[in-house]
């Protein structure tokens, strides 16, 4: 991945964290994965969304992450600092099913034209080139709530059809998701280091919604393995502010997730 604006004073990961954090709204309940999602949600909580509630898959409701003590996954005690409640993993995931979660927020390894995510196999699943770690909560989160995905924008990651649907987006597009039994939720936004992408209401194909500072439509298309639709009006995102970057760096001083 290339930093879209070298000399901008922030890394691509920091850009991702800032841009996706801005999509979260005050008062929402957000089911956040470790890494960029956790950082972005914490950033939002400290800046524009103090009433944001973070849920971690490991069983934590409403924690406050301590700067400099980021957890290695969502399942360690660092995730529980000053939480409102701890509960079992199964009951935490059931909060998604019950409908209590506004936004599921994850990273992605590979995504396709309909927002399906793959974190299981690269290549033929029967004889994979690479066995990836798998679903974790991804399948459940993507099946049961509105999703924001934060990932780096590379051609090999944005493919026409994923090798394996680990976490369902709109499956084959159109009405195929709800026909499969997934009648709630769905892919909402994909945030990359180049742009913010949404999905066309009818075809459920990926669409460019807005561009990050200094990025062109062509640049986004060039880094994508399929043809992107374009929103009627393409927005331009504001660059990360000094305040946003300062808070981010306070939380991840060792650049564990934002190198």
């Amino acid at each position: 991945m290339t930093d879209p604006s070298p000399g901008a004073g922030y890394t691509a990961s920091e850009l991702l964290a800032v841009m996706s954090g801005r999509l979260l709204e005050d008062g929402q309940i957000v089911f956040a994965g470790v890494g960029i999602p956790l950082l972005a949600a914490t950033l939002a909580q400290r800046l524009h969304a103090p009433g944001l509630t973070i849920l971690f898959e490991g069983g934590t409701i409403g924690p406050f992450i301590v700067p400099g003590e980021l957890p290695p996954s969502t399942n360690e005690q660092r995730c529980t600092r000053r939480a409102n409640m701890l509960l079992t993993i199964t009951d935490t995931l059931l909060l998604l099913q019950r409908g209590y979660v506004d936004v599921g927020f994850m990273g992605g390894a590979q995504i396709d034209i309909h927002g399906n995510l793959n974190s299981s196999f690269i290549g033929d699943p029967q004889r994979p080139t690479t066995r990836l770690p798998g679903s974790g909560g991804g399948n459940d989160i993507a099946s049961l709530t509105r999703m924001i995905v934060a990932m780096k924008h590379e051609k090999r990651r944005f493919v026409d059809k994923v090798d394996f649907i680990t976490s369902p987006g709109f499956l084959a597009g159109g009405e195929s998701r709800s026909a499969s039994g997934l009648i709630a939720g769905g892919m909402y936004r994909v945030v990359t280091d180049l742009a913010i992408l949404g999905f066309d209401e009818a075809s459920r194909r990926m669409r460019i919604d807005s561009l990050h500072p200094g990025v062109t439509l062509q640049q986004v298309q060039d880094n994508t393995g399929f043809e992107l639709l374009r929103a009627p009006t393409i927005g331009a995102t504001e660059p990360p502010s000094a305040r946003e970057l300062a808070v981010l760096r306070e939380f991840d001083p060792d650049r564990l997730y934002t190198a």
Partner: protein
Amino acid sequence: MVESYLDLRGKIASRDRSLREKVMSLEEACKLVRDGDHVALGGCTLSRTPMAMIWALIRAGRKNLTVSRSIVSTEGDLLFASGAGARIVTSWFSQGIVWGVSKVMRQYTETGRAKFEEWSHMAMGLRYRAGAMGVPFMPMRSMMGSDVAGQLDSWREMTCPFTGEKLMLVPALNPDVALVHVQRCDPYGNAQIDGLQFMDIDIPMAATRVILTTERIVSNDQIRRAPDQTKIPFFTVDAVVEVPFGSAPHECYGLYEPYFGHLDSYAEATKRDPEAGVKQYLDRHYHGPKNWAEYLGLLGIENMLDASRRGRSIHDD
């Protein structure tokens, strides 16, 4: 794939479920696990992993186990590489996101020498829960439409007779043995777990035999002073083993955090030549020490103190 109800009940009926002492050594507890068993592990990723019991089973030369867990970390590498584990059933399997994809997991699964069977995380939880409740399945609303379901054949879809909605039915999982590590329990197996519970309430209830390892054994009197803190009832438990730092180098809530330095060096050691690296690790840390204390010594006293200091900081609030 799902046992008949009468078989499941028969297995429980034949167990001694009386209020009795069941304290034993790691080595004695190993005898409750047979080659080929389905062994469910408590904890999640780096938390409350029943590491001492896994260590003992590998040392005892157990083979061909199917191992299930909510999320599998380094213990999965070691089970594969030692030959103890032939199949791992879980939702996620790698050392941990900060260390990248496990090279050992890749080596064994990509060459087909061991199997990594993937379910959604909630499916794992509801499979244990169905097993714990004594019903053959749980209905749920995820995993449908995905290739996670597509590659498995032991689930069913149904049309809900009440709402007409499509539902996924996941099969009950009743492990032969459950290994759970807890902060404290009494000699009968009444266990109290602080902090994150993961799937460790359902797993012992679903299993046919249960081995608890515990940071310390407390009196039954102490348990009875706060019965609403007991999370696992004694009658599900077959063995109680006191093993301080029984999850090291993983964490145990409120007592010690992960030994991060050790985990970094494990990741480094298994990076270039995963197979040789993990074998060396097993020789040194699993087959070398004469007992658990010597294993902890290899991890280092300073690291133990550091992990403990970080672990106990949870009580500073």
